[in-house]
Each structure stands twice: as structure tokens, then as C-alpha cells.
């Protein structure tokens, strides 16, 4: 069982408020990823859950028990640190056993538990080495092993892959996913890497400046970002956000116009909007298509041919920058003028407050 519930968690350091009331329910066995730009409070939140720090307000409960005032050790959680935090003066075996020795397990049991964890993570070969003699990937495995060996109610992982090189990161990511599948233990994972977040998460928590911006399944967040921040944060390259004006509000769509002949009908529920309102149109770079005659005229400034796709950097007539990812190796090798067309159904519309204009309800279709 590893059900964790956060209610109105606040944390401030002196006058500086870092977390402004976080509410989050994490179900048993769930893989929750906290993402957000650096300084958004996600690591602080993780430390609060771990019990390494205590909140200035709010309640943390694990499996229905209030643990807000309970020490880190007594919460039964395990944490994997960004720097691995392996004890440098102990061998890998001693590192794994340290936590078990502290709860005074019998020697034989410690031995069998460490052996099992070592086998699971394939670190048996270097059990007698010290962390200084291990590579980054091996250290990472040991750090995870140290968490696994204690059979915790939940794992807390604080940017565990950020010190690995790109290749190792991909393989370790897959291993963490496999580990979660096998153990079926709750995992809370902090990262600022959205690819990690997208691939690992059952549920995705986007944070900004100490607040939760949106919670949901990864693809839901990608397809229906709740606000401009989430829209801009998720997806690489970033979503293009174009300042436009509403020209017409119809029953099942809102038409926006912009410079360069931009005029597109977005199928959203525009009942709260009226013609003339300033709105932001969100277009994912992959949803832009090059076109000879129709669409919005842009001035191409840079073309990056990556092989399977071509990234086009362009500017609109009023200077707003756009990035488009066109599939294939189209002959767009030079700068100049071009037209982009887009499909209304794949667009996102945000009102002047930066909130998503509600999608059409099924009944309205």
C-alpha cells in the first residue's frame, strides 16, 4: 500500500513562500511525475513528502495516516537522490545494508535482502567496490538498489537520471519503468526533462512557482493543456503561441485572424468570448504544414534539416517567431517566403488570462 495524500501543503522560508497550498492525491502503485522549471518547488515538495523537511502548513498522509509530524525514517519511504548520495566510505554491499542495519534486522535477513536487490539490479559483480570505483550508471543502480532493498511503501526519485549521459539515460529510464511494473509500488518522480516525464508517468503534475498548474495523463496534458504555461512547457520544440484577435464567435467555433493572412476557425466553446477579444492561438510545430498558396505568409530565417524531419524557423509579418517541424527532407533548404497552413481541430486557444478556452462538449458537436 502506498497511497499518499497532500492537503494544502505550504512551505515558506522566512518571507519567501515556496509552496502555495498543494493538493494532490496519489493512488497506490501510481507513477506520478512532478515536472516544472527549476525553482518551481518540485524538489521541495518531494523533500516534504520524504519528511526531510516539514511544511509550514497543510497535511501529508500516507495510507490514511497523518504523517505530517512523523520523522523521515518512520514514514517507510525510500528516496533516490540526484547526486546518488552513496556513502563513499562504504562498499556497495554496506551501502545497501546500512538502512537494514539501522532497523536491526537479523544479519541473515540483511544478507538475503541485499543479495536479492543486487540480483534484481544486476550489481552483484561490484558489491565489494566502493562508490568511487563505479561509473555513473553503476552508481545510479546502487542508489536505486539502496531504495529497493528496504521494500518501501513508496519511492521518491529526485531527478535520478540528470547526471547520466544521454544514452544511459534512455536505458535507465526503461529500467525504472520495468522496475515500477515489477514492484507495482508508488513512485513519485521529480524531473525537469519532459521526455522522461512523458514516457514514465501514469500521471503528470506540472508545477510552476509553488503551484500545481495541471494534473493529468501525459497525453491529455499534451493534447489539452489547461493554460499557456502548460502549453508552452510540454512538447519539444515548444508550442508556437501566436497573439491574435477574434474576428467571429460562432456556435461551434471561434475564428481568429492575425498578420500574414492568418484566419482560422478553431472548434471550441467560445460562449464566454466575443469578437475583438485578444486571444492566444497555440500551434504545435508538428501541426504546421508548408503550403504553396493557402495559409499564413511567413519569412523563413533558418532551416535545420535533421533527416527524418526538417525544422523551419520563421517570423510572421508582425515579427512573431514561429517554429515548424515538417516531416521528410522537403526542399526548404533556403530562406525566403513560405506559407504555413494549419488544421483548426489541432489548434489550442487561450483567453486573455492565459486559460484554455473550453473544448466543445459532446452535446454541442
Amino acid at each position: 500500500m502506498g497511497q499518499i495524500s497532500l492537503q494544502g501543503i505550504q512551505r515558506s522560508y522566512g518571507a519567501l513562500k515556496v509552496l502555495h497550498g498543494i493538493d494532490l492525491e496519489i493512488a497506490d502503485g501510481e507513477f506520478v511525475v512532478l515536472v516544472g522549471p527549476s525553482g518551481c518547488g518540485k524538489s521541495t515538495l518531494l523533500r516534504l513528502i520524504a519528511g526531510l523537511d516539514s511544511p509550514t502548513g497543510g497535511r501529508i498522509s500516507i495510507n490514511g495516516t497523518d504523517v505530517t509530524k512523523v520523522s523521515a525514517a518512520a514514514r517507510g519511504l525510500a528516496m533516490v537522490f540526484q547526486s546518488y548520495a552513496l556513502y563513499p566510505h562504504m562498499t556497495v554491499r554496506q551501502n545497501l545494508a546500512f538502512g537494514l542495519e539501522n532497523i536491526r534486522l537479523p544479519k541473515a535477513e540483511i544478507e538475503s535482502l541485499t543479495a536479492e536487490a543486487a540480483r534484481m539490479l544486476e550489481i552483484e559483480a561490484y558489491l565489494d567496490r566502493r562508490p568511487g570505483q563505479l561509473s555513473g550508471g553503476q552508481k545510479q543502480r546502487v542508489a536505486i538498489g539502496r531504495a529497493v532493498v528496504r521494500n518501501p511503501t513508496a519511492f521518491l526519485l529526485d531527478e535520478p537520471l540528470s547526471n547520466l549521459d544521454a544514452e544511459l539515460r534512455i536505458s535507465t529510464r526503461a529500467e525504472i519503468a520495468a522496475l515500477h511494473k515489477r514492484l507495482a509500488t508508488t513512485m513519485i518522480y521529480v524531473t525537469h526533462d519532459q521526455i522522461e516525464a512523458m514516457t514514465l508517468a501514469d500521471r503528470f503534475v506540472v508545477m510552476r512557482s509553488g503551484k500545481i498548474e495541471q494534473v493529468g495523463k501525459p497525453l491529455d496534458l499534451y493534447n489539452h493543456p489547461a493554460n499557456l504555461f502548460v502549453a508552452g512547457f510540454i512538447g519539444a520544440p515548444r508550442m508556437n503561441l501566436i497573439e491574435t484577435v477574434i474576428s467571429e464567435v460562432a456556435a461551434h467555433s471561434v475564428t481568429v485572424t492575425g498578420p500574414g493572412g492568418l484566419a482560422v476557425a478553431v472548434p471550441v466553446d467560445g460562449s464566454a468570448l466575443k469578437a475583438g477579444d485578444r486571444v492566444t492561438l497555440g500551434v504545435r510545430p508538428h501541426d504546421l504544414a508548408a503550403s504553396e498558396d493557402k495559409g499564413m505568409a511567413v519569412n523563413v530565417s533558418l532551416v535545420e534539416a535533421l533527416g527524418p524531419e526538417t525544422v523551419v524557423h520563421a517570423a510572421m509579418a508582425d515579427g512573431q517567431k514561429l517554429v515548424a517541424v515538417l516531416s521528410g527532407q522537403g526542399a526548404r533548404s533556403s530562406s525566403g517566403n513560405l506559407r504555413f497552413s494549419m488544421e483548426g481541430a489541432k489548434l489550442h486557444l487561450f483567453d486573455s488570462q492565459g486559460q484554455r478556452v473550453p473544448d466543445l462538449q459532446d452535446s454541442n458537436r
Partner: protein
Amino acid sequence: MSGVASFLTRRRGGKAWHWTDIVTWVWLIGGLVIMFGPAIWLTASSFKSPAQLAEFPPTVLPYVNKQVTVEGHEKPLNLFTVKMADGTTRQLAEVRRIGIVAQMIDPANPGEVIKINIAERVPVRELGLATENYVTPLQQNDFLLYLRNSVFVTFAATIITLLTNSMAAFALSKYKFPGRDLVLLIIVGTLMVPLSVVLVPLYSVVNAVGLFDSLWGIILPTVATPTGVFLLRQYMLTIPDELLDAARMDNATEWQIYWRIVLPLAAPALAVLAIFSVVWRWNDFLWPLVVLSRKELYTLQVGLNTYAGELNVQWHYILAMTVVTMIPVVLVFVFLQKFITSGIAGSGLK
């Protein structure tokens, strides 16, 4: 060997001598003489007899009178070069001396006794060690007891110093509490107060708690060293907090974190402090002199002082026992100099 030779003969000017080569040699040799000269002279002189110490001009190396065993005499006899009345010189052994006249015999012809004016003879000397300078104090004058006291004081004080200072440093480096910086400032501030300023009040305190004239009276007041706390704190600041957090997640108590994580990781700094503490406590003189009054509690440094009386200074014993007291400190420096230099570099203290 050729490597050493080419290193020693290397010159800045290539084949020719550059003036900096000469300055360097003069400087280095001068430094060697200034630094090692006294130590070597001390060691050499510690093997001289009192008479030889009083000699002028002094010799660097210790000499003893050459002795021969002569038939019919139990003890070996001192050998002298004697200028005979006929102008020849002979080597004769002294049997006894009465006033300025010595009765001497030829070792080859022990039957004949020759009377010689002592002005006419010069002792035959050879390089030799007056080991009784060492043997007598160690066997008869309680110096082994002083040595034991010194070793006890040094080790007890060092262990307590390491323990208490590392605890203080742990708290000051790894916990946040109000007034932490003030506490550190006060601790470091005490560095500016020399012992002579607090000698009298400290004596009153030690006397009041009943530690006067006991070895613990010299150990306890010295164990809390601001240098040690500061040095260890600076080192512990470099131990990442994440390690402590990891240990907390691993169910470690704060004591276990200190004992099993922080202390082993601070070993290099502890080694430095241990070296310093050994040297400090071993060389302590003033405070033990004040606290100790019973002779059987004297440490080496205080014991040495007993040879310097008001009327008579027993230089030969002082020199010999100074060498004895120097040995542990020299050994510490020889074998642990790597730690000492890193400690001085790391803390800016010595």
C-alpha cells in the same frame, strides 16, 4: 643515482653558472644549517659528558677518553698521551691521581709506575657516546614515569579533543539553529585569548573542581580547542547534506549519522587535528607546571625543568632528555607530514 646527480647539478644557465644558481645554493644550504644545525648539535651534545660540555672551544661530535684494560687492574684505565722528561711522547694509562700528580703505567709494562705532572699529558680521545646521560635519568630519575605521564596526557587529551571537537563541528556545520553563527564566532574568538591571560582564573577553576595536582587537571582544560572546532567544521561543510538526508531516509538516528557517516568522512581532518593535538599536548609546559606539584605526576616537559636548579644546571641530562622528548614529535612530522601540510593549507592555522 645519475638522476639525483643530474638534479643536483642542474643549473639555470645551462652549462655555466647563473647568479640565481649561486643564490639558490647559498640560500638552501644556509637554511639547512639554520634549521638542522641546532637539532644536530643538540643530539650530538646529548652524548657528551659534563666536562666535555663545559669545554671551550666546543666540539660538534661527542668524544670519550680512550680506555685500556691492563693486567692487574679490575677497571679499564684512561689512556693519555704523555710528554716525557726526555722529550719523547708515550701513551700511558692512569692508575690514580693525587693532586696534580698522576700515577701512570705503560699498558705494555704494567709493573712500572711512572709519576707524571698532569700538565704534561693530554687525554687520548676517540668518538664515543656518553650513554649514561640517557640511562641515568631513565633508570634512576623517574623519567620513565614522566614519559608514561606524558603519553597518557597526550593520548587521553587527543582522544577527548577529537570526540568533543568533532561533535561541536558537526552541530555547527550541519544543523541550523538560532545563534549558530554567534556561537562559532565566540569559539573562534577565543583564539585571540592567550593562555597567560586566563592562567589564574583557570587555575582557580581547576582547583575548585578538585582537579589540582592530577593529570586530568591538565587534560580537561585543554581539550576544547577553537582551532580544532574550526578546522573540523570547515571540513564538514564540504560533506554534502544529501548524504545526511540519505542516511535519515535509511532510518539512521542523528547519533548514527555522526558516528557512521560524518566521522569516517571527516577522517582526513581528524588526522590533521590529531597530529596537532599530539604535538600541542606533548609540548605543553606552562599549564602542567602550574597544575602539577607531586613529582610522580610530572610530564616530560616539567620533569626536564627539574634539572635546571638555582645553583646547578645539569646540562647533560637536560640535553639527553630533550632529545627523548623530541623523538615522538619528530616521528609524527616525518610520517604524517602530508596530512600536516594539507591541514595547514586547509585551515590557515598551525
